[in-house]
């Protein structure tokens, strides 16, 4: 036990959230209390507003059903490695990234708790922990941020097994002569983003974010069922037998859109619902596309031609994908 205890105690807890920024450290920390930080560092940290939805067993007693707010302190420690190089642009920038009401989506390690005495607006109770979070992955969801969302999870989608498995650890299993289709990488990332947003009740600005995510997801949803031009061709080819197929490719996105429009009710009771519609739907469509990947990949080299003149067998495959 003692050995285990030692190893576990050196493991950082990891948190993940999305929420509006309250402001930068330069305005929310008392500079005199932490003189060593300096202006640049104070610009590269800030507080984020989050809340937890809670319903007690007895609704007549505290804590009452509803959103309970709290704040976390996010810091990029730019005086140390690797952040001095990793966040050089952030440090060099005149303005802080921690602008009020910009959404920050972030996963990172908890380094400890912020000393209440250095906060301009400390929490009410001494027992309140203000987590100090050092982001591992992060995204400031301002206007400029919408284009660069897709990269981190790219490998997870581009690794459908294309060869018969030998040693499951064999790196050759993950090699591929064909280029990954970058469009598809948006799907899982957006899924993650939706999930994150749903799990963190990100206050009044949440609907904006969800709308953005949903619109960004729509082309991605199409791309899982084929190239952008293909749904029309499939529709023409397959409409006699199954007239409804033409609308299928967009369906996942529509479901997501509906769900997100009533997200406040979904997430309220079950912030991590085991049968959450969004992850499951998208996961299903992903699974289906991945399980159908080997037949598609055989023809990878002819993909450009297929886009122009799709043979009937691909129409069938495409139907399978969109149907499942």
């Amino acid at each position, binding site marked *: 036990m003692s050995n*285990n*205890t030692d190893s*576990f*105690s*050196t*493991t*950082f*807890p*990891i*948190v*993940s*959230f999305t929420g509006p920024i309250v402001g930068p450290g330069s305005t929310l920390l008392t500079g005199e*209390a*932490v*003189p*060593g*930080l*300096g202006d640049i*560092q104070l610009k590269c940290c800030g507080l984020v507003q*989050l809340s*937890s939805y*809670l*319903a*007690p*067993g*007895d609704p007549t*007693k*505290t*804590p009452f059903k509803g959103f*309970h*707010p*709290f704040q*976390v302190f996010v*810091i990029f*420690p730019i*005086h*140390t490695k690797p952040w001095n190089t990793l966040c050089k642009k952030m440090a060099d920038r005149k303005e802080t990234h921690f602008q009020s009401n910009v959404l920050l989506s972030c996963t990172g*390690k*908890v*380094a*400890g*708790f*912020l*000393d209440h005495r*250095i906060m301009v607006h400390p*929490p009410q*109770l001494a*027992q*309140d*922990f*203000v987590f*100090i979070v*050092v982001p591992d992955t992060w995204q400031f969801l301002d206007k400029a941020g919408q284009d660069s969302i897709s990269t981190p999870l790219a490998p997870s989608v581009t690794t459908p097994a294309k060869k018969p498995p030998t040693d499951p650890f064999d790196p050759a299993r993950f090699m591929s002569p064909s280029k990954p289709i970058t469009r598809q990488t948006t799907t899982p990332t957006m899924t993650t983003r939706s999930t*994150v947003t749903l*799990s*963190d009740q990100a206050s009044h600005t949440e609907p904006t974010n969800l709308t953005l995510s949903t619109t960004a997801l729509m082309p991605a949803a199409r791309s899982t069922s084929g190239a952008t031009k293909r749904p029309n061709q499939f529709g023409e080819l397959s409409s006699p037998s199954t007239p409804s197929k033409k609308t299928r490719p967009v369906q996942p996105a529509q479901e997501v859109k509906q769900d997100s429009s009533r997200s406040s009710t979904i997430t309220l009771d*079950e*912030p*991590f619902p*085991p049968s959450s519609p969004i992850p499951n739907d998208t996961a299903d469509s992903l699974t289906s596309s991945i399980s159908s990947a080997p037949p598609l990949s055989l023809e990878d080299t002819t993909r450009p031609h297929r886009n122009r003149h799709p043979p009937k067998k691909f129409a069938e495959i495409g139907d399978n994908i969109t149907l499942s």
Partner: protein
Amino acid sequence: MSIMFFARSRFVQKFASVEEQYVKGLNVVAVTGIRFPPPDWTEISEYSGLLACSENGDSNCAYFSLNISMYDEKLDPTELNDTWFFMYGRVHPYALTWEVGPDNYYTVPALIIRDHGYQA
């Protein structure tokens, strides 16, 4: 805010009725200590003023009310006691106050772990 962590619990208690539950639907409650080891950079002079010092001197351990669901009769909640678990769930780092009896209040930050969110 979701959280992944290793933790050890004590004072495990199972509720018979929904009204007793701290969080609706979660029928087991415990006190959990999570370690937050300070990274090296927090010891640099620039950053040393950021971290709060805890009362008992164990600056990297914090205690939460662990709320977990355990409806499977095969699971014995007392097995949580003093066992290290890896858990995934939600955290509310500010203290919440539960009325646990007449003029008796329990004020503590909370962890909410739903199904399949823990592994010994």
